[in-house]
């Protein structure tokens, strides 16, 4: 089918300027349908800025962003709203609404956009909770009562509420212990294969990059300096890529699989 050929996100020559400083400049990136793309880069390199620009939280200075084949500058506000229902965003600190219970957080978008019976809404919320590995009883908790790992899971459940085709995750495993982070990686992988999601995630975590990413892109100097499989990263000439993937921590993760 021809539809498959259109990338979920297509970014060309993107520039973002914040406070008179160029954060991103001349950035090109495609996110293919059904892939898990991991974005890495140093602190302050603009990974999160890229994510926030894609979802329209930050204004871009120039360039084009096409999502599901639609140029976001050229379409009307209602169409942008329709686009927003097709993606789910998980923020770094969860960004759960603190005055609502976890269940109400998950149901928030359902309540506003779908005309569902109360029973179905409750069942769907429970289903999403179970999908992310939370208990039904956790749904009645307030966000302030959750541990770090549970907050991440609840945030993921909320992002999944409307069955988006495209998920954007901002540092999904940051602040989790290695075991929880590993579980969370598994969870993302499972959800992706079950629901056929396209996933764009920003991370610092080499481990999760190796476990779940189909493709990795590196942000440095305001653009994507390298994109491809982890294997191709290990031989890349760019100094930051080299020190990231072949440095002490990188080697520890990537060479483990090789025979000693």
């Amino acid at each position, binding site marked *: 089918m021809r539809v498959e050929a259109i990338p979920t996100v297509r970014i060309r020559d993107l520039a973002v300027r914040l406070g008179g400083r160029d954060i991103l400049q001349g950035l090109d990136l495609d996110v293919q349908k059904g892939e898990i793309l991991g974005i890495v880069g140093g602190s302050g390199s603009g990974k999160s800025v890229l994510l926030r620009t894609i979802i329209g939280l930050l204004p871009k200075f120039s360039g084009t962003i096409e999502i599901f084949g639609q140029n976001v500058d050229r379409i009307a506000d209602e169409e942008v709203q329709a686009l927003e229902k097709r993606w789910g965003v998980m923020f770094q600190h969860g960004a759960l609404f*603190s*005055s609502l219970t976890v269940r109400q957080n998950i149901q928030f978008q*359902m309540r506003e956009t*779908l*005309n*569902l*019976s109360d029973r*179905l809404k409750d*069942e*769907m919320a*429970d*289903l*999403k909770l*179970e*999908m992310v590995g939370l*208990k*039904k*009883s956790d749904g*009645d908790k*307030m*966000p*302030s*009562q959750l541990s770090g790992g549970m907050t991440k899971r609840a945030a993921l459940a909320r992002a*999944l509420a*409307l*069955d988006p085709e495209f998920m954007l995750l901002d540092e999904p495993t940051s602040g989790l212990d290695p075991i929880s982070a590993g579980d969370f990686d598994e969870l993302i992988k499972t959800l992706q*294969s*079950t*629901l*056929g999601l396209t996933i764009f995630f920003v991370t610092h975590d080499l481990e999760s990059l190796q476990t779940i990413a189909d493709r990795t892109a590196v942000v440095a100097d305001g653009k994507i300096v390298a994109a491809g499989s982890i294997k191709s990263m290990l031989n890349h000439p760019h100094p930051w890529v080299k020190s990231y993937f072949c440095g002490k921590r990188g080697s520890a993760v990537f060479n483990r699989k090789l025979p000693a």
Partner: protein
Amino acid sequence: MALLTGRIEKGGYCKITADGAWTAKNAHLIESAFADILAMTKAANSIRIDLKSLEELDTYGAWLLERLRRECTRSDIKVKFSGVQSQNKILLGEVAQLGLDQSSGLDDSSAKRVFPYYLDPLLKLLKNEFLHFFSMFGQVIAAAARMIIHPANYRITSTVYQIDRVCWKALPIVLMVTFIIGAIIAQQGFFHFRRFGADLYVVDMIGFLIMREIGVLLVAIIIAGRSGSSFTAELGSMKMREEIDALKTMGFDPVQVLILPRVLVLMIALPALTFLGSVAALLGSGFVATLYAGMTTELFIDRLRDAITMDHFWVGMIKAPFIGFVIGVIACAEGLQVKGSTASLGQHTTQSVVKSIFMVIIMDGLFALFFSAIRM
């Protein structure tokens, strides 16, 4: 397009067909068709759900299919899907596992009730309102005592900064409000007293009222709304971000570092602003007396000098630091009670202002009794 149809064939075989897009958008249509289908299956003795012509399926649709399957299933009939497309297999498999454990959190709140239920809110109120207030009251006094023993530990910079915020920056609004209220009282006085020919006594009334009550009350209410609320919000968000816990672990006492300077500053700011506010109110009433009531400036000042004694001045001023102390203690106690959520921050900020204003008025009443008892 019919999303869900059912048909009974001979021999009690029921064939349910799902077609079209079983997605979130259509979920309510699908769900409303359930009742008919379920009624139909009552007569059936074997049921099959056919998914051959399904075009789209998401978790909503998958769950509805699973729910349909579970609801049709009876002890004697096993319901199966037929014609499952390969891309939907994983999703249906996942959904089939869900919700099987019906264990939900037990509601144990009823077991804990020892007191009669109607006493609960009252006890809670007593505990929350009074205990927290007096606990903070005691901690501030203790911190003040420690400060007197070790004056070198006192935080001068913080105090000066707070005086700038609470006192100096509040001056414009305080002067404006008191000036206008002074003018309004004078205008009303002259307007109504003129009928009895009691113009001159209006000046006496203005003098007592402003020096004893209006000056300090107005300033207290402005400061409770302006600085009390900001102290609560400030300390509350510090509590939320664990900054107060950080201070504690570094060996600082949050009461000494954060709260004592704020309370002391309010005790300095209130008398100072009361004095200036009263002057502005007298000025406002003086303007009205000369411009509206046609009194000469000399006459107004003469009457004022006769009416106001040092006692009236002190009655207003003595109250001020006590009221400042109470506003500070309430604002800080509320701030430290903020829990994790933003809603709780808003709630305690409101509580802080409401309680401060309430307490200011109660204290003013008590002082009025006290001063009349000592004939001041």
